[in-house]
């Protein structure tokens, strides 16, 4: 499950922020902000994708770099949210 989430997130970032294939592979923990791949508008596009693809609600207070700044942190955040939703 976690691997699948990571793959989907990575594909979304490639199609929407990286755009090209020949850039050396994005590291799992690479900062999207520091790499200049995502800006303050891009983060809203990412949130819309996460809500649509995984059926979760992202609270405003959760839109922080700790949750959203790398493939790994995003996948971790989504996994955590889904676990809470399933437990409820």
């Amino acid at each position: 499950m976690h691997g699948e989430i990571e793959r989907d997130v990575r594909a979304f970032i490639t199609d929407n922020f990286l755009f090209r294939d020949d850039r050396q592979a994005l590291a799992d923990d690479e900062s999207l902000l520091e790499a200049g791949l995502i800006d303050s508008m891009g983060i809203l596009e990412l949130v819309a994708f996460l809500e649509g693809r995984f059926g979760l609600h992202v609270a405003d207070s959760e839109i922080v770099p700790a949750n959203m700044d790398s493939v790994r942190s995003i996948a971790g955040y989504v996994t955590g949210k889904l676990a809470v939703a399933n437990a409820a």
Partner: protein
Amino acid sequence: MPIGAYLSGGLDSSVVTALTSRIARSRLRTFSVAFESDEFDETPFQQEMVRALGTEHAATTCTTYDIGRLFPAVVRHAERPILRTAPAPLFALSRLVRERGFKVVLTGEGADEVFAGYDIFKEAKIRRFAARSPSAAWRALLLRRLYPYLPSLQAQPQQYLATFFGSRPGDLDDPLFSHLPRFRTTSHGKAFFSGDLRSEIGGYDALADLRDMLPEAFTRWHPLSQAQYLETAHLLPGYILSAQGDRVAMAHAVEGRFPFLDRRVVEFAGRIPPQLKLSVLREKHILKEATRDLLPPVIANRPKQPYRAPDAEAFFGPGAPDYVEEVLSPRAIADTGIFDPRAVTRLADKCRRLRSVSTRDGMALVGILSAQLWADAFLKLQTTQDATVARLRNAPEPLSHLT
């Protein structure tokens, strides 16, 4: 020769029009662009000025898809790739002026450079302040207040805004400090360059080039003067007065005249202390004070609304012009060789899906589209001419005298 005036509804063109109507021998003629969307349209303010001055007014409404349809002609007249569609409505405006039998118009161009009207001057002031006290939590709030007319910015999370407008180590010492966020946004477009173009460019750094071109005393100037210089020396002649000015006006044989760029006005403004132009965060302070009695209060007290036009949305959706799909097709992109076909396809897909995209994606899209149209209009024409000449050179005797 009858002279008309552009009326945008903002301070600068209103000042020019008000002063001109005082000395005009007959009723002054004014011309405006209207937009469908409230985000861009300034019609109520234009009407306010028309009522106050009693000018004979004409307006042309530019729809989002008009911009898409006019864009190839705009690029042909600009003779260069451009990153914004803003010249297109002014192309439609000069056509209106021409249809009404006028050949010369006065505009408010130059006031934002000379008297410090652009938001980038305020943005730089806030960023410089924030860079010196980096922990201040209110800085993103200030930045949000700076752009009240950008609905998308209002929704953006604070931490990300702060990172985007914030400074990186070394930024404060960079002579280009005021314009760094803008340069970074624009450079996003380079992600779409083809492998061939990338290797040709190699390690070339345009900002290093720009730093080398600065006047010797530049680093000792007041920060506002530095930012004004970058706007005036580079953006004004290369874009504002060219692609968005002379090129689209002359497309319909209309000549623009710019009272704020009169040498005497520019020299006078150059001697005014920076804090009288940008007073705290009030732009064009001294110009507003000096012209208060000329204008209706609603115009004089209006916060600045920069001139903008719909960008990427002009090229996608139900009314999009036909040429777009062809010009952005992987085959056409590969043919021209400037961009990476796969990357362009992904960007076009994103624009199609979202309808409203971020500033940097919008600029990349408009840049790619205009570069493709520009290459079609000029580079391919040149290739055809070269081929014809070569063919004639190699032709049997009777044709050879033609070369």
